[in-house]
């Protein structure tokens, strides 16, 4: 069982079973790691903002780097109108990043390797962006589906294509994060299994692969959080500055 590469994705209950109105609300290892990442984020930012020095300490430096990174990303991709949404995008980025990074620790559970988590995040973003778009532009937001400068004959076809394009946003957003995390962790586990089964003589090659893959996985963990946040900014930009 321990050598099964998919075993690491199993969700199991921790503590007592809680059933409310036939819905299983028990505390699982997934909930534990989500809680851990939330606590880690709050702890880091609390330590970072406790003492505001001119010359920042370690924690303050890290917090400032994260803040500047997200602030620059929002102003670059969505413009100044998106400034009010900074807290949302910042927490989104930090949550995904910390879930991915905590998953890189040995024996840890990767929350983002489950499609239900990423799909829920993506659907929330999708609904929020759609609501913001309709609030800002009224029914003019539907112009997003009717690009200008298209001959009248092609218009119905283009509109259908644009609607498919719009609806596929949450799917591609969630599948990208989930698939990358799950594939990476499965691959790490498979190479780890090779090390055990090949023993002292032949295990060195998969071990070196494993080390290299760990580095790659840390890069992917950061990159996927970045992509998730930047795509949210791009969608927000479409909703705020309608230019089609």
């Amino acid at each position, binding site marked *: 069982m321990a050598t099964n590469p998919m075993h690491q994705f199993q969700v199991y209950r921790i503590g007592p079973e809680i059933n409310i109105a036939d819905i299983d609300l028990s505390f699982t290892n997934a909930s534990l790691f989500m809680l851990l990442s939330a606590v880690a984020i709050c702890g880091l930012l609390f330590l970072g903002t406790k003492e505001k020095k*001119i010359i920042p300490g370690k924690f303050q430096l890290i917090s400032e780097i994260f803040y500047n990174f997200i602030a620059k990303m929002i102003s670059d991709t969505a413009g100044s109108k998106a400034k009010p949404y900074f807290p949302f995008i910042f927490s989104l980025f930090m949550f995904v990043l910390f879930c991915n990074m905590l998953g890189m620790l040995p024996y840890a559970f990767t929350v983002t390797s489950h499609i239900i988590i990423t799909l829920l995040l993506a659907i929330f973003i999708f609904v929020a962006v759609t609501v913001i778009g309709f609030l800002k532009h009224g029914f003019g937001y539907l112009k997003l589906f009717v690009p200008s400068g298209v001959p009248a004959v092609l218009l119905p*076809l283009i509109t*259908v*294509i*644009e609607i*498919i*394009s719009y*609806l*596929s946003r949450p*799917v*591609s957003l969630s*599948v*990208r994060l989930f*698939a*990358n995390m799950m594939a990476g962790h499965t691959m790490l586990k498979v190479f780890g299994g090779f090390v055990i089964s090949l023993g002292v003589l032949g295990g060195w090659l998969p071990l070196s692969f494993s080390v290299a893959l760990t580095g790659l996985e840390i*890069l992917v963990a950061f*990159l*996927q959080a*970045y*992509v998730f946040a*930047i*795509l949210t900014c791009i969608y927000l930009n479409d909703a705020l500055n309608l230019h089609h």
Partner: protein
Amino acid sequence: MSNLNDFKTRLKIAKKKLENSSKDTDSSRNSSSMGSAFKLSTDLVAHVAVGTIIGFILDSWFDTKPWLIIIFFFLGSIAGILNVIKTAKKMQEKE
């Protein structure tokens, strides 16, 4: 007070150095281009999948199996390819 002024000039110099070095390294551009590579590949698949799912749902609504699923599969493919072209054009404009 002189200490603070000294610090200010040192900060200015450090900032200048940082600006120059950030222009030289293209690591940030590198990672964002890797990000857009991930975006392009999943976008293409997601468009086809969503198109097919829409076709499937409409088919079971209107009882027209299997025509709408075929049509929407192709529409999804077209949407995916158009989207990739659009993103690639945007990336070229940036450079």
